[in-house]
């Protein structure tokens, strides 16, 4: 899952640094992801994982690191399974 997330960030995050140099917990916004680019990352993730983020998840804190995105996706997938 984390590699798929990283791919979406690599393709759409327009980061000034290589995502591979950042840990799963690194703050993506501090590393230079703009809010504009983060919208494209969200769209790419919805596509890649075939899910829709509800409005309550569409906020900065959910998309600030690879692991926070993974936690949100896990929650969504558990919801679908349950």
């Amino acid at each position, binding site marked *: 899952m984390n590699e798929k997330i990283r791919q979406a960030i690599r393709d759409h995050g327009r980061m000034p640094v290589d995502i591979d140099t950042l840990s799963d917990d690194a703050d993506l916004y501090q590393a230079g*992801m*703009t809010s504009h680019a983060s*919208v494209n990352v969200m769209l790419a993730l919805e596509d890649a994982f075939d899910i829709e983020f509800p409005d309550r998840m*569409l906020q*900065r804190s959910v998309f600030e690191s690879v692991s926070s995105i993974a936690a949100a996706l896990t929650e969504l997938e558990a919801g679908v399974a349950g």
Partner: protein
Amino acid sequence: MTAIADREALLLQAVREIARDVASPTADEVDRQARFPSEAIAALRECSALSALVPPELGGGGVSFQTIAACCLELGRCCGATGMVFAMHQIQVATIVRHLGPDPWFESYLAELSEQQRLIASVTSEIGTGGDMGRSIAALGPADGDNLTFEKQAPTVSYGEHADDLLTTLRRTPESEPGDQVVALSRREQTTLEPTGTWDVLGMRGTCSPGFVVRATIPSEQVLTTPFARVAAESMVPASHILWSHVWLGISEDAFDRARSFVRASSKRAPGQPLPAANRLSQVLGRLGLLRAEVSSALAEFCAASEDPARERLSTLAGALRFNNLKIAASEQAVEVCRGALDVCGIVGFKNDTPFSVGRHLRDAMSGPLMIANERIRETNAGLMLIAKEV
């Protein structure tokens, strides 16, 4: 409960009187001379209105955000510039109060603000960022000891020369990315302002907002711990859009009242005659009704969302869209209402020295679409709408 209700009512009453007795008589002069509305601001200090939002335990009035919004409307009705200065100050106070959390220095600062009725201005815009408040070029750099220093090129600083303190957005460190911002408070005596232009403008002339190079050296405790991105989403942006909108609504209400007085006077002169101006007035009322509805529903939504300790709704993209929309809609409607009032009054509205003059109202309202340009907000919204679900 009753004591609180009394406090709210007393403040609103005092502000209403200041608007009527101090701001209104000087409004035309403030506008013509593009001078700071010092009498009205002094009167607001006198009744401790500058600390009205500060919690009582820190010496403030502890009134609700709703009451402050109502005060902005009352002041805007009588003098757009006074209303805007008051609104901008309250936005800075609200921002600090809502993000006090781990910062003891800011608590003592608020106590001092309450005691001395200090006026805060903000330095958020910056040359070279294309009007994007979410990015900074200027950064906090190390200085002697525990001090930090910065230099920021600000294209406009509202009432910069008249403020006691400045709240400035900056990159966290010289190495930080443009979006990694914090907010720093600098006192006037820690700051130098080098003017880079004048303030000879179409409207909101009394806000005295020329550009400056702002330089300051401050102890590190004068930087809010909460990142600006959170401060902006949860407080500064929605509070700005709501309080500005109340000022624009106040300006529009007065323009409408003047148009209505004009129609009444005309109908008395020719009783029973058809009055085309009255039809136009009813059109203006329709627009004013839309403006009132948008402004009051946004205020109610913001206050409801603020009751959640996590302010979850305000952090979401849908929340950002909501308050961006308010800004666009209210600033555009206000111009339309004032222009409609001018249509109703005709030449006596166009003249600057009649009881039905609405030129100042129209010019003041025209600043609205430019304060954080609506074009820029539309661009942001365009992105947000791609992903937000319930909009």
